[in-house]
C-alpha cells in the first residue's frame, strides 16, 4: 500500500523556504524507504517556486532511477492558475534537448520568448563535437530568452553567471544531464534561477581529478574547494566559475546563492558565507544543485567585469 506525502501548498518569498521544504521532503522520503510505494500529493499547491519545483523532479528521478524507489507525483492541481502555470513550464515531464535537431531546439526556446520564465529543460553534458554544438546553440538561445524575460541593469552579469554555472555542471556532472528552471518576478525585483544535475557530487569530481590532487576527503572540503576556485580542469587559468559568480552575485549585486552537493551545502549573501555539513540520514544531494536570486537593480558602481578576475 502506498504512503502519501503531502507537499507544501504555498512557498513564501524568503529565499530559504524552498530549501527548508526540500530538506523536509528528503527526510520524509528517507523515513519511508525504498520498499514502499510513495505518492507525493502536490494537488493542493497554491504557489510553487523554481527552487522547489526543479529539485523535486530531480529528487524523484534520482530516487527512482538510482536508488530503487517507486515515487509518483499527483499533479492534478486544484488551483487552476497553478495547473496552468505548471503545464506551461512543462511540469512534470520537462523539455529535452536530447536527440533533437538544432532547429527544433531553437524553435522550442523561441516559443518561450514572451514569457517570464525559462521552462523546465535539460541540456546535454557530453563533450563530443555534436553535443558541444547543441549546447552552444542552447546557451545562445537561453541568453536570448533571458534578454526577453528580464529587464535589469546588468544583464551581462546574468549571462556570465548562467554561462559559468552551466559550464561547471557540464564539467562536474559526469553523467546524465544538466537541468534549468528560472522565473522572473518583475514586481519583486529579482529573477530566481535553479540549475542542477543528478550526476557526480563535487567530492567525486575532485577525487577523480588526478588521483585526488587536492587531497579532498569530505563534501564540505569539496564545497570549499569549489568556492575557492580550485579547478578540476587543469591550468592556472581554470576554475573561476563558481568563485567569481558567487562574489559577483552576493557582494556585487546583493543577491543570494545556495549550492548543495553530497551532504554539504553553502548559503552565501553579502555578509555571510557558510558551509554546512548535514548529519541527518537521507538528506543528501547526488550531484550539484544551485539556486540563485539575482536582483534586477544594482548599485551605480557595479560593473560585472570587475568580478571576472
Amino acid at each position, binding site marked *: 500500500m502506498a504512503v502519501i506525502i503531502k507537499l507544501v501548498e504555498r512557498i513564501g518569498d*524568503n*529565499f*530559504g*523556504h524552498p*530549501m*527548508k521544504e526540500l*530538506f*523536509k521532503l528528503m*527526510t520524509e522520503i528517507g523515513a519511508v524507504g525504498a520498499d514502499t510505494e510513495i505518492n507525493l500529493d502536490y494537488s493542493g499547491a497554491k504557489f510553487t517556486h523554481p527552487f522547489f519545483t526543479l529539485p523535486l523532479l530531480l529528487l524523484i528521478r534520482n530516487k527512482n532511477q538510482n536508488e530503487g524507489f517507486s515515487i509518483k507525483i499527483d499533479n492534478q492541481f486544484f488551483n487552476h492558475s497553478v495547473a496552468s502555470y505548471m503545464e506551461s513550464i512543462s511540469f512534470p515531464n520537462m523539455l529535452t534537448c536530447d536527440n533533437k535537431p538544432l532547429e527544433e531546439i531553437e524553435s522550442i526556446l523561441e516559443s518561450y520568448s514572451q514569457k517570464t520564465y525559462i521552462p523546465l529543460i535539460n541540456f546535454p553534458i557530453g563533450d563530443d*563535437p555534436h553535443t*558541444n*554544438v547543441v*549546447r*552552444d546553440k542552447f*546557451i*545562445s538561445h537561453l*541568453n*536570448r530568452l533571458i*534578454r526577453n524575460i528580464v529587464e535589469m541593469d546588468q544583464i*551581462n552579469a546574468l*549571462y*556570465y553567471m548562467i*554561462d*559559468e554555472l552551466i*559550464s561547471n555542471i557540464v564539467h562536474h556532472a559526469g553523467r546524465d544531464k544538466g537541468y534549468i528552471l528560472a522565473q522572473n518576478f518583475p514586481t519583486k525585483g529579482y529573477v530566481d534561477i535553479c540549475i542542477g544535475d543528478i550526476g557526480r557530487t563535487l567530492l567525486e569530481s575532485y577525487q577523480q581529478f588526478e588521483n585526488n590532487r587536492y587531497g579532498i576527503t569530505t563534501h*564540505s572540503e569539496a564545497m*570549499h574547494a569549489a*568556492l*575557492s*576556485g580550485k579547478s578540476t580542469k587543469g591550468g*592556472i*587559468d581554470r576554475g*573561476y*566559475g563558481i*568563485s*567569481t559568480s558567487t*562574489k559577483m552575485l552576493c557582494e556585487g549585486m546583493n543577491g*543570494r546563492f*545556495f549550492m548543495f552537493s553530497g551532504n554539504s551545502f*553553502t*548559503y552565501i*549573501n553579502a555578509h*555571510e*558565507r*557558510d*558551509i*554546512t*555539513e*548535514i*548529519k*541527518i540520514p537521507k*538528506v543528501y544531494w547526488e550531484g550539484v544543485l544551485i539556486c540563485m536570486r539575482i536582483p534586477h537593480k544594482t548599485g551605480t558602481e557595479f560593473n*560585472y*567585469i570587475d568580478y*571576472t*578576475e
Partner: protein
Amino acid sequence: MKQEVEIILSEIFGNSLNTRESVQTLMRKISEETSSLCEKFVILNFEYIDFMSRSFADELHKEITDKDFDINITFHKMEGDLLSMLKMVEKTQKQRSNITKKPKFVTITDAKTLSDYAFSW
C-alpha cells in the same frame, strides 16, 4: 599587398560568444579562410556581439597567443565590456588572486535546526 580576411562573428555565432568549443569553430573558419594566403591577416568583427563569456575569451586568448599561431588578428568593433573581458583573461594566464572570504563551517545534526536555519535566509 596585404590580404585581409574579415570574419563577422555574429554571422557565425549570433549575439553571444559562449563556449570554448565555439573558439575551435572559429579557429577552423580562420584556417579555411586563410589557407590560400601567404601573409595572413584576419579581422575579427565583433559588431552585434552583446556578450562574450570568460570561457570564450580565455580560449581565444590561448589560441591566438600560441607560439605556433602565425596569423595576424585584429579586433574590430569590440565594445568596452568585451575588451575588458579579454584583458582580464590575459592577466589570469600568469597569476591568480586570492579572492574569497573564509567561510564559516557548520554541522547540523537535527531536522528542526536545519529547517529553522534554511527558513531564516
